[in-house]
Every structure is written in structure tokens, then in C-alpha cells.
């Protein structure tokens, strides 16, 4: 078995898993399963990215989406008591719209592939970098030179979103018994406890 064949087998196995889990996300009834299949889908996508040697992006996908975003997603899904949808409840009218959108996306993808096949990139072989090539450094250089403004603007928008989300959800409830940590730390023990020195007493009816 040659390494190329091995790589292709790995690719097709994980590509199948990716597509299968992506379809399962929208077709399973249980919301928890849906979220878990989405995790599986992200994970398999990361493996596909590893195969095209984009290891930094692949690991970041796992770290950010699987490790943080989906955890919070699962958290919410578990906290909410979502009733399992029955087949009869699903609106049939959505199916047509969904098929239409899917068809449009398929055409777009095919057009993109057609564009790629018609020129520029050599289709039958991957662009390989020599050993020791670090795409971490490469991504960093691109982000902070060529795309520095979009990058910074995106960062500011995210910050604004965080602040806005906190402002929208923060409410002071009356009767809230939240404790102030600095007050707790700075208490004076002598105000709360009195040490009394007294002679040892003998118990009643005991001699020793």
C-alpha cells in the first residue's frame, strides 16, 4: 500500500463521516444527538484539513468550535427541556424551500469546481511545502500584514458583541444575596469572635 493510496483511503473514510454526521445533525430527532453529531462533523472536518497540511487551522477548529462553542451549545441544550419533535409536527412546506436552497448551493459549488478545473491550480496534485514549513507563522504573517484591518475590525466587533450581550442580560434583582469577596476577606476576627479565658471545670460526678 503506497502512502498516497493510504492518504486517499483516510480522506474518503473521514469525508464519508463528515457528510454522514452533517446529515445526521439535521435528521435526528433528539437535540442532544444533533449537537453531538455537529461535534463529530467538526472533528472530521479538522481531520480533512490536516490531510491538506493545514494543521494550525485544523487544531484551531477543534479548540474553538469543539472545545468551547459546542460545549456551551450542549450546555444550553441540556438545560432547556426541548421536546422531541415528531414527524407529524415537521412542516412539509419547509422541504421544498430546503431543496431549493440545497440545489442552488450545489450549482454554486459545481461552478466553483469548474472554475478551478479550468485553470490556475494543478488539479491532480497537492501543493506540497518542504519539511520545516510552518503554517502557523504563515497564517500570522498574512493576518497581521495583508489583512490587519479586517482582522482588527472583526476583533472590535466581537468585543462590542460581548459587552452588549453582558449588558443585555445583566439585571440587578431585588433581594440578591450576592457576596462581596473583598468584604469577606477584610473582616476583623475580633468583631465576630470573643476569646474567653477560663479555668478548666470538672465534670459533674467525675473525679478525674
Amino acid at each position: 500500500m503506497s502512502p498516497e493510496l493510504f492518504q486517499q483511503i483516510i480522506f474518503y473514510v473521514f469525508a464519508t463521516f463528515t457528510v454522514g454526521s452533517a446529515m445526521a445533525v439535521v435528521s435526528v430527532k433528539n437535540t442532544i444527538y444533533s449537537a453531538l453529531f455537529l461535534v463529530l462533523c467538526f472533528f472530521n472536518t479538522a481531520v480533512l484539513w490536516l490531510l491538506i497540511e493545514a494543521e494550525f487551522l485544523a487544531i484551531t477548529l477543534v479548540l474553538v468550535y469543539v472545545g468551547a462553542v459546542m460545549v456551551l451549545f450542549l450546555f444550553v441544550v441540556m438545560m432547556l427541556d426541548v421536546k422531541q419533535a415528531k414527524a407529524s409536527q415537521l412542516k412539509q412546506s419547509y422541504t421544498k424551500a430546503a431543496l431549493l436552497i440545497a440545489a442552488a448551493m450545489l450549482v454554486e459549488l459545481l461552478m466553483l469546481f469548474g472554475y478551478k478545473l479550468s485553470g490556475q491550480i494543478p488539479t491532480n496534485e497537492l501543493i506540497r511545502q518542504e519539511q520545516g514549513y510552518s503554517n502557523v507563522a504563515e497564517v500570522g504573517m498574512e493576518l497581521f500584514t495583508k489583512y490587519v484591518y479586517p482582522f482588527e475590525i472583526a476583533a472590535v466587533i466581537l468585543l462590542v458583541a460581548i459587552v452588549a450581550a453582558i449588558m443585555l442580560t445583566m439585571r440587578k434583582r431585588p433581594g440578591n444575596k450576592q457576596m462581596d469577596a473583598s468584604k469577606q476577606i477584610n473582616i476583623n476576627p475580633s468583631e465576630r469572635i470573643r476569646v474567653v479565658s477560663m479555668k478548666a471545670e470538672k465534670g459533674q460526678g467525675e473525679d478525674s
Partner: protein
Amino acid sequence: MELLEFLIFDNLIYILAIVLGVILTVAYLTYFERKVIAFMHVRMGPNRVGPRGLLQPFADVLKLLTKEIIFPKNANKFLFLIAPIITLATAFAAWAVVPFADGMVLADINAGLVYVLAMTSLGVYGVIIAGWASNSKYALLGALRSAAQIVSYEIAMGFALVGVLVAAGSLNLSEIVRGQEGGLVHWYIWPLLPLFLIYYISGVAETNRAPFDVAEGESEIVAGFHVEYSGAAFALFFLGEYANMIIISALTALMFLGGWYSPFTGDSWIAQPSIFWFLGKTSIFLYAYFWLRASLPRYRYDQIMRLGWKVFIPITIVWIFVVAVMKVYHVGPWWN
């Protein structure tokens, strides 16, 4: 055929060596933990099985493996079984990029630091899935607490790692260690002291160990997410937790204490870099885990959240800039 040979001889043997090593270390870590805590409680600790109780871990393992695995009523069997496997697999996967000595590493990848962070953050799925699949309110409460705690402390942990990344100028763990060559004063623990403390404390929180063990707080929610687990499935959780503790300790040693380098300088045998320095430094942090467990009471949930969000994250953000300034101005002996 060549590929198969490559896979078996160049990878499988190393993987087996690491996995068996970690499992054996975990076994004796439990013994060590019980002895250390017994010492701090002025007790004897395990001393019945084998000389000085040295065979106790094996007795425990045999006991756990021969016990029955009980499935709770209406539990989701598939998820119930896969949760401990996820915990264990992610705990072992992180070991792939740990350099034990110069060049002694399974996968010397450039994004090693991010990889470790990703793998340790995946461990939370084992906890969440276990908590949900058990069909028990205590397990679910434990899982929710754990998820909130791990996600919160991961941010502080990530920022502490950004500090290391700025200091070393590389995400490769071997490169990070090589940046600290040249004795005690060259270690990153000195310029990154606040980040070092925050990383280690966040590591303790990530692994759900005392004093951050609200996820399994025995006095409130019995045993948290693994309350319904027994036998081999529980053993896997146990193994995963301890493997995670070792990896946090190992990473702290690599990133802040110069990994395999000796604290001494010169040409004598004691100044030679070797795997024993790395193992010794790792052991210090493992001991600190037990020390903390034996001496501190459990944090309250709101205290944990306050510490993570309001104390650690601001300190790390400020210190990242301090490190950047120190690096740009070539503050010695680390960056000249």
C-alpha cells in the same frame, strides 16, 4: 509494506511505550497520593498488599475490573459507555506532542501548544456526556458545573499559554524548552511568574481536582458526573483524570521549568540535560496536587467563577503585554 513497517516500528512502539508508561505512572500515582495524604494526616496509608503496600494499585485495578458495570434505568447506553472512553482517549492523545528529552517526542509538530490545549479542552465532553447519559440529577448537576468551570478556566489557561508563546516565539514544545537552555535563571518561570501560577492553578481547575472539585463535590452532589459509574467504566474515568493531572504537571515543567534541562550550569554530570530532570520536575507538580488536596477546603462555586473571570483573566492580559515589552527590549538573561 514500507508504510506498514513505518506505522508499526516508528509509531506504534512509541505509542505503546507512552501509553503503558502513563498507565503505570497513574497506578503508582494513586499509591503516592494516598501515602502523601496519609503522611499529612499522620496516618500510615496503604501498607497491607505487598511490601509497604506497594502492590495496592494492582489490587485496586483488579477489584475495579472484576466489578459489575451497572446501567441506570433509562440511561442512554451508548453515550453512557462512550463517555469514559472519550475522557481517556483525549487524556492520552495529548501525550503525543510531549517531548520527554531532546528529540524524544512522538510527534514534533509545530502547533504543539495549541494541540495540547485542544486535546485537554476536549476532555470536557466525557464529563458532559457522562452526566447527561446517566439519567441522574446529581450527575447532570456535576456535568453542568464541570462544563462551566472548564470553559472558564480554559480562557485563563489559554492566555497564560499566549504568554509562553510570546516568550518562546514558537508553538513547538521542543522549541519552547530549547529557549530555556542555560541553567536555573534562564527558565521562563522568572519572567512569567504570574502566568506560571495561573497556568498551574487553572490546570488544577481543569482537571477537577481539589480545591476545585465542585464537579464531584461529595458532600453536595454525591460524586457528580460519575456517580452512576462502577467497575471498569469508573476505572477509565479515574485513569483519565490522573493522566490529565500528569500532563498538566508535565506541561508546566516543560513551559516554565525548562523541561529536560538541568538547573545547574557547567560540565559536570549533574548539569547534563536528561529525561530525569523532566520527570523530576513533573513530580514536583504532581506532589503539589496532593499537597493542595490535603490542605485546602473546597471552593464555593461563585468563588471559583470569580477567581477565574475577575482575577486570572485580567492578570494574564496585563502580563502578556509585560512579556511582549520585555521581549522587544531584550531584557536579559532570557532574551538577549
